[in-house]
């Protein structure tokens, strides 16, 4: 056993008795902090946690949520302590206690029955991000593969795929970021759509460090966020217009001739020739009988087409008429010229009209960014929560490239990055040991954003069972009410693995009690926003009869004759996940060091600067500002697209307000909402509304209001604040249906398929692409805390 514990030592609380042991573990809910924690244990109970050591003391931290979770969630009275089988109607909340043997027999029987009747792919699984342990979070996908069922992808359903779809076509990676400590040294930092001080609060001190070292901080956010309140400058833009703002900046930079022409020539596809007839890149095979896929540029001397790789200094501007193999003559221009043409419309004045940020502010920021070095761009998930949210991320990458700011210290363009993606992406493409695909067995994959429709319609094929693990589905998924109404009746089995009776678990046929991360077997937690890999050790024994995800799936597979695939120990799994990686930086981690220290940094330069070698895993190996494959969607060149439910759309006549559901300081989504220490500080949900919008609706502070559109309605108390701009409302999210007087905010959202995103990867759930109206339904009662609403 690898549990490594310090010698029991005297507790340091006043008069506190000795602790039995101190275990270095990892706080790992769906939080990007990934804080190492020393867990003080007495009598198999956590008596406190403290921040654990890190090689870089900047990562030595914990927060209110981590403490509340360790102290109040792990042993919460609501923790499920044994398997439960439904005895009432679905959703009625009546369950009977059963043994694990009964649970495994029931599940194996149901899964086999469904598979025999409809085919194995009628059994489906998905997960979300409730547990950042690698083994825990991979287990649901693993059983889907093992039983050759259906795996519903979850990043689009999460609403975080827009970011990836902006970076991937442009930079060749779905996420990348400079090290947080690398911000120190930047002279200008611009943050788009990221409330670091709330949703990544443990990283905020790096920003303060950078500011104290001389950085000017600019925050672009519709709301006056905590981060905005700390900035030197705050730009409050109309929700969903980040790409337009950046296009206005690009226009101003190009107009002032402040772009980095040398960088554009050498490291981007801006000099590539684009055919005027179809917008495709001109390729050698268009001109030469033996030509390949190679792209062409204009050579500097004569302005003739030549292979892009043959000249370091091609012309950035210009055109040429070429004769195709079939004899046709067509004109071509550099991609740069095509972009300049397309971007000419986005003057700062035009951008100001779109974004509702003054033109001189946009121009000023643009010129400052182009003339300040080093200058760093950070873009966060907030910018992607609209129909074409990927464009904001592409815009940020484009802005950085046009100014030659990629691959340089204290500069770059960052979103996420971290060790997690590097650890996980390797196993997806290279899994010789069957960590994810045991015995080479593989599930059929369907987009999670279509899960509801797939189950409801039986198309493209019937899905008759769904098993969720690590997913607060009833509070976090879009349109859970529709799932219950349209999809659930089509399911012959709905199983949920959970720690507490969540709104989704109440509808399950069987609920499997899951351990918290503090009770789980050994696991590894790669940093979501940092480059460290940590060992997560078991701190205390499982609560009640709860089991971890792996063992729950193992128990079922054993009864289905596939137990051989689940015999690997937790330590073997963790070691092999690192050792089999195709990523040198992951593979180089020394297991003995990881065991000894509990934390090891990926074998990368420190601080890490992505793309320092200016090599990009795109087709051309360059930054691809021109995206050839999106030309059929009008997005070969960066453009701004309005949200589907823009507050300037016709629909806004009926529903004039954009509904945002921002991340909250006091909870990670729905995970901390029911903890006493949290609720002392955050008694209940409050819809944030600007006093101007409130006055127009005769709404006063504390009123109960209905927030509604043609898809749904929820009721909540309102708080009036200047921190949200007129024309929008914001509900810091994480609330369960029972905390709202009526309905749920995720009943009002939509997941309208987006063909361009489907062409890149998959439609992203556009969480804030939502228009609503708000009306007062009651006067405030005397009690400051809203009464418990009706439960689902």
């Amino acid at each position, binding site marked *: 056993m690898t549990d490594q514990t310090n010698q029991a030592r005297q507790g340091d609380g006043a008069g506190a008795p000795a602790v039995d042991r101190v275990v270095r573990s990892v706080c790992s809910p769906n939080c990007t902090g990934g804080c190492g924690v020393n867990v003080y244990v007495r009598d198999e109970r956590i008596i406190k946690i403290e921040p654990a050591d890190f090689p870089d003391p900047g990562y030595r931290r914990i927060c209110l949520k981590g403490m509340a979770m360790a102290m109040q969630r792990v042993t919460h009275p609501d923790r499920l302590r044994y398997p439960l089988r439904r005895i009432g109607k679905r959703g009625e909340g009546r369950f009977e206690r059963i043994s694990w043997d009964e649970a495994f027999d029931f599940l194996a029987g149901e899964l086999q029955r469904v598979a025999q009747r409809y085919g194995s792919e009628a059994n489906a699984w998905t997960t979300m991000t409730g547990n950042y342990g690698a083994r825990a979070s991979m287990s649901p996908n693993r059983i889907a593969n093992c039983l050759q069922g259906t795996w519903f992808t979850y990043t689009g359903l999460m609403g975080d795929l827009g970011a990836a779809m902006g970076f991937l076509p442009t930079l060749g990676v779905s996420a990348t970021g400079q090290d947080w400590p690398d911000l120190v040294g930047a002279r200008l930092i611009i943050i788009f759509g990221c409330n670091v001080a709330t949703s990544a609060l443990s990283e*905020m001190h790096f920003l303060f460090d950078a500011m104290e070292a001389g950085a000017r901080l600019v925050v672009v956010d519709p709301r006056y966020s905590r981060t905005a309140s700390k900035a030197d400058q705050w730009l409050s833009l109309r929700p969903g217009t980040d790409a337009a703002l950046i296009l206005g900046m690009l226009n101003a930079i190009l107009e002032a001739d402040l772009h980095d022409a040398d960088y554009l020539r050498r490291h981007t596809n801006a000099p590539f020739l684009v055919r005027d007839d179809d917008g495709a890149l001109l390729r050698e095979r268009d001109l030469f009988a033996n030509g390949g896929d190679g792209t062409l540029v204009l050579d500097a001397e004569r302005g003739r087409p030549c292979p892009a790789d043959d000249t370091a200094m091609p012309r950035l501007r210009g055109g040429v008429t070429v004769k195709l193999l079939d004899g046709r003559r067509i004109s071509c221009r550099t991609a740069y010229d095509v972009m300049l043409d397309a971007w000419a419309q986005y003057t700062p004045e035009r951008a100001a009209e779109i974004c509702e940020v003054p033109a001189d502010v946009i121009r000023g920021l643009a010129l400052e960014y182009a003339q300040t070095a080093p200058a760093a761009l950070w873009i966060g998930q907030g910018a992607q929560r609209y129909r074409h949210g990927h464009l904001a991320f592409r815009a940020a990458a484009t802005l950085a490239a046009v100014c030659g700011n990629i691959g340089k210290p204290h500069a770059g363009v960052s979103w996420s990055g971290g060790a997690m993606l590097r650890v996980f992406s390797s196993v997806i493409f290279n899994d010789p040991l069957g960590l994810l695909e045991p015995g080479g067995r593989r599930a059929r994959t369907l987009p999670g954003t279509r899960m509801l429709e797939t189950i409801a319609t039986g198309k493209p094929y019937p899905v008759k069972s769904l098993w969720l693990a690590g997913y607060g589905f009833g509070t976090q998924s879009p349109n859970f009410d529709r799932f219950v109404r349209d999809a659930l009746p089509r399911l012959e089995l709905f199983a949920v693995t959970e720690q507490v009776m969540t709104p989704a678990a109440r509808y399950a046929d069987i609920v499997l009690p899951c351990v918290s991360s503090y009770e789980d077997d050994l696991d590894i937690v790669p940093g979501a926003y940092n480059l460290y890999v940590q060992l997560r050790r078991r701190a205390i024994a499982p609560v009640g009869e709860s089991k971890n995800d792996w063992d729950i799936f193992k128990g079922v597979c054993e009864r289905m004759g596939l137990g051989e695939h689940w015999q690997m120990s937790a330590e073997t799994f963790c070691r092999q996940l690192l050792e089999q990686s195709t990523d040198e930086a992951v593979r180089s981690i020394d297991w003995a060091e990881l065991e000894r220290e509990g934390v090891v940094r990926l074998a990368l330069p420190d601080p890490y600067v992505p793309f320092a070698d200016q090599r990009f895993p795109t087709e051309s190996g360059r930054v691809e500002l021109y995206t050839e494959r999106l030309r059929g969607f009008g997005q070969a060149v960066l453009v701004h697209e309005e949200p589907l439910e823009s507050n300037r759309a016709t629909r806004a006549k009926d529903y004039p307000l954009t509904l945002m559901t921002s991340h909250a300081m006091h909870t990670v989504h729905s995970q901390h909402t029911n903890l006493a220490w949290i609720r002392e500080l955050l008694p209940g949900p409050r819809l944030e509304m600007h006093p101007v919008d409130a006055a127009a609706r005769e709404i006063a502070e504390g009123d109960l209001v209905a927030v509604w559109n043609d898809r749904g309605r929820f009721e909540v108390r309102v*708080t009036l604040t*200047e921190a949200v701009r007129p024309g929008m409302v914001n509900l810091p999210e994480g609330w369960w249906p029972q905390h709202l007087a009526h309905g749920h905010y995720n009943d009002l959202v939509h997941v309208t398929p987006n063909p361009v995103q489907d062409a890149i990867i998959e439609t992203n759930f556009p969480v804030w692409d939502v228009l609503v109206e708000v009306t007062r339904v009651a006067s405030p009662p005397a009690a400051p805390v809203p009464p418990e609403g009706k439960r689902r």
Partner: protein
Amino acid sequence: MTRQYVFVIDLRRCIGCDTCVVGCKMENAVPPGHFRLKVFDSQRNLQFKKPVGTYPDLDMYWLPVMCQHCADAPCVTACPTRALWRRDDDGLVMLDKERCIGCQRCGEECPYDALTFDDETGTADKCTACEHRLAEGLAPMCELVCPTRAIHFGDLNDRDSKVRALVDSRESRRLNESSGAAPQIYYLSP
């Protein structure tokens, strides 16, 4: 020279996250509904905090408030049983709960509302600067857990201390200085 322990709280770095509040509750087993440390906004709200000003010209800061360990503490003067006293060797205001009779006069006199009282017995409770941790050479819990490194604790009389350097180099103020209590928590201006 004797020590003078102080907290120096950097309001430029404080993001009002309440981590110090929860850390204090965890370390000191503060009962539900009671606090030795609270974080206010600039309008003294404890919940649903808001900026001041009119959109888009806004300003916001947060104020962590605990016992101010006053050099001339009104609570010490008011306490009839000497359950409260100022420690000579480091300036911390201490509380002996065994001697507290729950009269709550200290609470009435405190300019900072820094004392909380047991629901049943009425006995006082307050920030001790985690003296049990200090005795082991450890930092107070609020300082240890502050994610933005906004809270600093140390000896103001030590010329080499971080707190001394901060107070000397940054503009600071103490709360309600006109109270005459000579509070020992320094707030670096936002």
